[in-house]
């Protein structure tokens, strides 16, 4: 779909009305949509929920979003607009899911925090719309260039690291595959999940803790694979091998699953992550043991998909 529009200021008022901030009332055809404003109390972005009408056409939607971001209606949420008041959106083009926003000269200079916050706000807000997969900023037709010459091309939401987090590390979230036990305890069940974890721990650490935590009630037919009192002492990934050090609770046979299921749930989950192809398990620092007389910990373990049940289930 190729659409080009010159932006008329007097359509503004009309379009603004179509894009309202929600009060308490719920809307019939609302999806979860957030506007990213600048937080007043500190230099970061803040999500403010908003509603979009499903019956708006794409162009109007894009304009409304921009003007909502520019409005000061978010003041009551402790936010302010990241868009400088004198900045004009000259035009926008939606070309094969790539949104190009053309701004006037008043666009803040890069690199600066105003520029970064503005760009991030625009990208993160627009990325929520269905038809948009990247957002590119241009200044009077020219690509956005930083002081040292680097050009910022089209970006998606992944271009930014934790925006809403608290503290310096905030939270990360990842889509992962978890392996739990099935009812019989002799096979593995795969579950897709998006986990959120503090930025201070690694993905592997979050995964091990998640496995120890056990399946959620929404995970049907899934059963815990590791004893509840197991504690992760340390985990690190290097050269494709993930070293996992657990405490001796691992050796308690309180879970009621076969030893293969217990260990390979861990191995399979971890090997699903980037950079990890095998896993080395140790108990209180020592790998010199054979788990349940079946699995030798002294060598690294690779994933075993034979233990899987037939159909991995999709949840979320």
């Amino acid at each position, binding site marked *: 779909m190729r659409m080009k529009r010159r932006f008329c200021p007097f359509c503004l008022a009309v379009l603004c009305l179509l894009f309202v901030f929600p009060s308490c009332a719920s809307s019939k055809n609302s999806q979860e949509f957030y506007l990213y404003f600048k*937080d007043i109390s*500190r*230099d*970061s*972005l803040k999500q403010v929920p908003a509603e979009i009408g499903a019956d708006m056409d794409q162009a109007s939607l894009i304009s409304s979003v921009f003007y909502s971001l520019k409005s000061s209606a978010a003041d009551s949420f402790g936010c302010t607009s990241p868009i400088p008041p004198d900045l004009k959106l000259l035009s926008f083009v939606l070309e094969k899911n790539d949104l190009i926003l053309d701004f006037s000269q008043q666009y803040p200079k*890069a*690199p600066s*925090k105003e520029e*970064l*916050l503005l760009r*991030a706000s625009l990208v993160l807000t627009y990325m929520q719309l269905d038809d948009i997969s990247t957002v590119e900023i241009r200044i009077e037709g020219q690509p956005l260039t*930083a002081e*040292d010459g*680097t050009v910022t091309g089209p970006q998606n939401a*992944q*271009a*930014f*690291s*934790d*925006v809403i*987090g608290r*503290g*310096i*590390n*905030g939270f*990360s979230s*990842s889509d992962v595959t978890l392996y739990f036990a099935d009812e019989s305890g002799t096979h593995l069940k795969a579950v897709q999940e998006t986990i959120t974890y*503090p*930025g*201070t*721990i*690694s*993905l592997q650490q979050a995964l091990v803790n998640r496995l120890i935590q056990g399946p959620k009630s929404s995970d049907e037919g899934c059963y815990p694979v590791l004893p509840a009192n197991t504690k992760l002492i*340390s985990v*690190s990934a290097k050269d494709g091998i993930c070293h996992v050090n657990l405490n001796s609770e691992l050796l308690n046979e309180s879970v009621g699953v076969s030893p293969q299921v217990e260990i390979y749930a861990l191995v399979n989950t971890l090997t699903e992550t*980037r*950079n990890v192809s095998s896993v080395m398990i140790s108990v209180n620092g020592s790998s010199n043991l054979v788990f349940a007389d079946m699995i030798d910990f002294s060598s690294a373990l690779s994933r075993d998909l034979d233990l899987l049940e037939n159909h991995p289930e999709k949840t979320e």
Partner: protein
Amino acid sequence: MKRLFKSLRSRIIFFLIVFSIVPCIVLHTGLVATFESHLVNQRLIEINQRCHVVAQELGKNEKVSDSLTTSYASVLNWYSEAYGGRILIIDQNYKVVLDTFNVDLGRECISDAVFKAFEGQEYQNYDRTTEYLEFVVPVRSQIPASSEQRISAVLILSSTTDWIMESFRGTQRIILLLELVILGIILFFALYVSYMLMQPVNAFREQLSDFGEGHRDSVPAVEGVYSELNSITDSLRMTIQRYQDIDRSQEEFVSNASHELRTPMTSIRVLSDSLIGQENIPEETYQEFLKDISVEIDREARIIEDLLQMTKMGKASDTLNIQMTDMNEFVIDLLKSIRPIAASQNVELIYESFRQVNAEVDSTKLNQAFSNLVENAVKYNKDGGYVKVSLDADHEYFYLMVADNGIGIPEEALPHIFDRFYRVDKARSRDTGGTGLGLSITRGLIQQHHGIIKVESEVNKGTTFTVRVPLKYERNEEGSV
């Protein structure tokens, strides 16, 4: 439960326990409070230093990515593992150029702390809930061809402190265990010591209970263990002695009283027997004997009257009718009624008053008291003698003196004259109709007014009674024993 706490032994136990446990708890809390912060601070200082060293190393090149050789990047990886945390380096375009977790590499970082660091502000924080130390440090590099520095990057480092909390908890567990052990020992100790301390008291208690129930006659005593118990024992002994004395004196009184009462009865018996036994007794003899019987009956009546008054005075129900009285008038009235008797005995009555005196007294009772004194002074006087009554007062008391120049009272008798039924010369007082109770009644009446009575005398020279009574009558609540 309340009853339990009233026991001295329980209190001893309670306080022993409290005052042993409280220092323990104080110590524990103090230790625990400083332990964590001490360790965290140490770590904070160490890592802070490390951060600055790394920042300096990174700042050696104008562009931080030039400083990030593969070897230095692996050093940083090592640090992050050693500290159990994460290292991030953000360049001047806000892009992540190093991430030991390999998650945010290449992304643009939006963080308030990072923006502030680019403006030169360092940040460090201990997040207790997540158990992490966080550091944000600006990296300064030299601007080429100038002596100035600019911030080319920001270093973010985090380190876990969960080991601190773990050892902290471990230590706490040990301390709690020790506290429990101490509590156990203290409890045992408290029970034992309190028992030992209470032993003498319990022994004393038993003895006292025996005594109270009449199982033993001697006053209980516990040999010299506690001075407090000793003084209690002494007071107890004195009290018991006092009651025993009172008992004895009452026995004496009863025996004296019955003796006195018997005497007139004996005379009546004798007189009437002699009348019954004889025949043909002339009428004059009947008249004479009957007169004598009548006199004896009067005497008996007087004795009984006085006895009754004595017992009445002893009771708490005997109330005084206190009125403001003009004492001068009082004395004048009093002397008026005695004048005839004095005249018939040829004794002169003199009244001396120094000032106007008004006092709160029961005039009826005082009348009786003073009449007695004046009558005695007249009775035990010689022919042509005098009785001088003088009235004086100061701001607190009034003083009444009854002085005579009569036969006097011998020295050995003086201490006893107020005793019941005591008579110096039995023969003489019987003739004059005395009951032996007069002075003790007088003294009793004066004591009811909270006054005192004193006597001075010399044989054949005379006797002086001095009475002092408070001008204001103070009502007190206790009865006197």
